[in-house]
């Protein structure tokens, strides 16, 4: 997949809570609402709102199901979500590297 810098995507993922959600989902196939709430520390309302934004962007897929008799909401990254997360980390790494190089140049000169 061809990736390029997308300011909208960067803005969407740069928000700490959404980055945490995406990081959690990037480390597994899917996680449920309860786990995401523990991982992010968000209230149900806030988490739902962040998930809606990520779903609108096509980054996450939300599946409602039953485990036994209990309702369970599973959330997983879409392919576009995985690619956007990878791209986000790559951009941050590049920025970090450039910052290091600049510091080294300043120290030399």
């Amino acid at each position, binding site marked *: 997949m061809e990736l390029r810098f997308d300011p909208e995507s960067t803005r969407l993922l740069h928000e*700490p809570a959404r*980055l*945490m959600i995406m*990081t*959690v989902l*990037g*480390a*597994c*196939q*899917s*996680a*449920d*609402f*309860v*786990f*995401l*709430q*523990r*991982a992010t*520390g*968000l*209230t*149900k*309302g806030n988490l739902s709102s962040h998930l809606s934004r990520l779903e609108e962007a096509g980054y996450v897929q939300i599946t409602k199901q039953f*485990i036994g008799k209990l309702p*369970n909401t*599973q959330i*997983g990254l879409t392919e576009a979500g995985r690619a956007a997360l990878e791209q986000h980390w790559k951009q941050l790494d590049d920025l970090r590297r450039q910052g290091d190089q600049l510091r080294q140049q300043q120290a030399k000169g």
Partner: protein
Amino acid sequence: MNQDRRLEEVRRVTAFFSYWQGLRLVPLGFMLMVEGLLLSPLFEGKGLGVGVILLGVVVATVLFSCVIAAGYYRSAYGVVRNPATNRRLDAWLVLFIPLLALLLALDARLELPVFISGLVWAGAAWLYERATGGGRRHWRLLALALALLAPLPLLGVSPDWMMSLFLGVLGLGYAACGMLDHLELTRILPPVKDDDGTAL
């Protein structure tokens, strides 16, 4: 806390969630301790029946406790699906545990001057910690404690006591590491107060 560090911790727990559910290990630790006690010279001649009944009760309790613990984690911490990682690690465990048990049986039979199982199980404990995300140093302490058992036969500890001692240390280690894994999990994924003030 540094956000990168927090992200890395949560990523690690998510990737290996089922291996951080420490309370599932605690009953197994107690079972090993009881087994160590039953195999010790203290129980020699006390009648096999009592030992077998006690072991049966302990095994049943362990199985029951594991089911309860799994249910607790599902309801309090949620569900993470990670089939590829779990399959890979479980395959290693299925392969390694019988080999480690076989080595233990050989140690008991051959009565070597060095207790080889101590060293090998130490390596296994260290590898387990590394393979399940790292960051839990108590597993390295268990590895160290198991490795320190290796030279004990040279210091005059009898083979009868060696096996009991090993199972006791391993069981105590599993129970302690399980508790500490749980505390670490709770530190990284603390309970959340919801909109209405109730804790999750």
